[in-house]
């Protein structure tokens, strides 16, 4: 039996099917627009509310009870330093964990537990990390209510994201590269450090950025461990005039961060503070954006050299 349809029938069928293609292309574009337009709307709204407050003084002043004099100097410096600690702690730890899981771990129940664990940590409410850190970092390890404690707390918070992204990046490296390195007599660590690590940097960067974008906006855990709201001085500078020129005193300094400033302002009665909050939100977003932009650029640069 030959049920092959005639050419005319086939054509009619194709026209029908292609309608779905078109419909989906439209639906897809719309879905994309929902996301992008929401972002644009949020950004525009903040821009309208916060733009008048965005000036040099806003960036270089300390908090004040007078909305027009209040600024975010201590907040953005604090956020920057906390993010620095977070990155320095989360990236090596997350990357090392991912490397272990992808390149070293035997396929057994221990590994499986670790894997479930990592995804599970992604769902723990951030405030619980704050409570954990208060007990562990602040009191147990005696780090106090410092930039160091806050950075480490946020590092724990974003660890799952870094681990997952890094694992995906490592997985995309073809096994031919691994075999090539081993075949030349490389040890496992040589293979990992000279190949796996450099080639997965773009993917790692993506994970770090997504994680950092989340960390920079967190308030509750940072307040729990003791971030301040009014602080009219900056932490000691990391570069000192005398030998050894580097100082780590800032790690133990009291601090505040951007989102705390923002939350405080949004909850104040005066309308002028709401404008400050919008302006701070804008600055926060720009900080996140520039982190993202840097990473996207780096990723783009590095990816050009690595293709499979």
């Amino acid at each position: 039996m030959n049920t092959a349809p005639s050419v005319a029938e086939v054509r009619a069928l194709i026209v029908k099917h292609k309608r779905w293609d078109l419909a989906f292309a439209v639906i897809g574009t719309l879905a994309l627009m929902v996301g992008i337009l929401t972002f644009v709307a949020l950004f525009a709204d903040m821009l309208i509310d916060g733009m008048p407050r965005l000036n040099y003084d806003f960036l270089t002043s300390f908090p004040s009870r007078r909305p027009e004099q209040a600024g975010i100097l201590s907040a953005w410096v604090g956020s920057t330093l906390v993010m620095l600690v977070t990155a320095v702690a989360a990236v090596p730890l997350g990357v090392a964990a991912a490397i272990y899981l992808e390149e070293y771990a035997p396929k057994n129940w221990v590994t499986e537990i670790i894997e479930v664990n990592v995804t599970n940590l992604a769902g723990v409410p951030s405030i619980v990390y704050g409570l954990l850190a208060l007990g562990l970092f602040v009191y147990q390890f005696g780090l106090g209510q410092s930039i160091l404690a806050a950075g480490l707390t946020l590092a724990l918070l974003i660890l799952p994201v870094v681990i997952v992204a890094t694992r995906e990046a490592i997985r995309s490296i073809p096994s031919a590269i691994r075999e090539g390195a081993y075949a030349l007599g490389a040890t496992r660590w040589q293979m990992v450090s000279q190949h796996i690590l450099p080639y997965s940097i773009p993917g790692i960067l993506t994970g770090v950025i997504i994680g950092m974008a989340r960390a920079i906006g967190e308030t509750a855990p940072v307040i729990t461990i003791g971030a301040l709201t009014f602080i009219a001085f900056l932490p000691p500078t990391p570069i000192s005039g005398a030998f050894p020129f580097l100082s780590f005193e800032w790690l133990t300094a009291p601090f505040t961060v951007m989102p705390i400033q923002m939350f405080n302002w949004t909850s104040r009665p005066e309308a002028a503070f709401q404008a400050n909050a919008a302006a701070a939100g804008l600055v926060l977003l720009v900080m996140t954006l520039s982190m993202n932009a840097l990473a996207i650029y780096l990723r783009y640069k590095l990816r050009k050299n690595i293709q499979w």
Partner: protein
Amino acid sequence: MVATPIVEVTSAANPQQSKVLKAEVVDLNFHYGSVQALKGINMPLYEKHVTALIGPSGCGKSTLLRCFNRMHDLYPGNRYEGRIKLHPDDTNLLDPKVDPIEVRMRISMVFQKPNPFPKSIYENVAYGLRVRGVSKRSVLDDKVEEALSGAALWGEVKDRLRDLAFNLSGGQQQRLCIARALATDPEILLFDEPTSALDPIATASIEELIGDLKNKITILIVTHNMQQAARVSDFTAYMYIGELVEFDATDTIFIKPKNKQTEDYITGRFG
């Protein structure tokens, strides 16, 4: 169903002058988890000669080749039984007490698909030396030039050593991988279908290269191309479903194989 493996070279008409044993596969079984891929393989490997492994797809050629540099150690669940003795020091390559890294430092491998690292041409060739702790610039420079010349690539790339290896053509990439292997002065060089992804011109240049190399190194090559086996090898082993059916001087295998199945395969009546 399959004839007993023939291990000794029975052909008196061996075209080569001297035949020194470089390595010897003894009663080798290999298992991928529960799948047995090699069954009681016995085979010699002669120094400074080319030995070809032929046989239908899936017969275990790659599996056997990869036993020589313990590549199977990289994946869990794989199991060796038997020995591969490396002469003159009589080490059993498969001994769990023998460090696979040591084995790989002595035995290099070139893969079916060229797999250069996403680094510069220079760094690709120097990689094996760096792994061995060599970092002196002058030594590296010399070795890189020597290896690239050995792989017939020096002329084409000497002005662009800092270029990314990915920018080379497929054939050049494969020669780069050969240079990378050569740079470490291996005792044995393993080739797994090195030309199957290459065009005829690149193929010809690599075959020529193998001809040159065998004056210095012992070579084991897997190929699915009978013509290639005939052209480049001194000895040929025919495998079928995990067993070694026949091993002999290449001329013997191609002109009057002992085994009916070998003959059928070589003349294309089967497989």
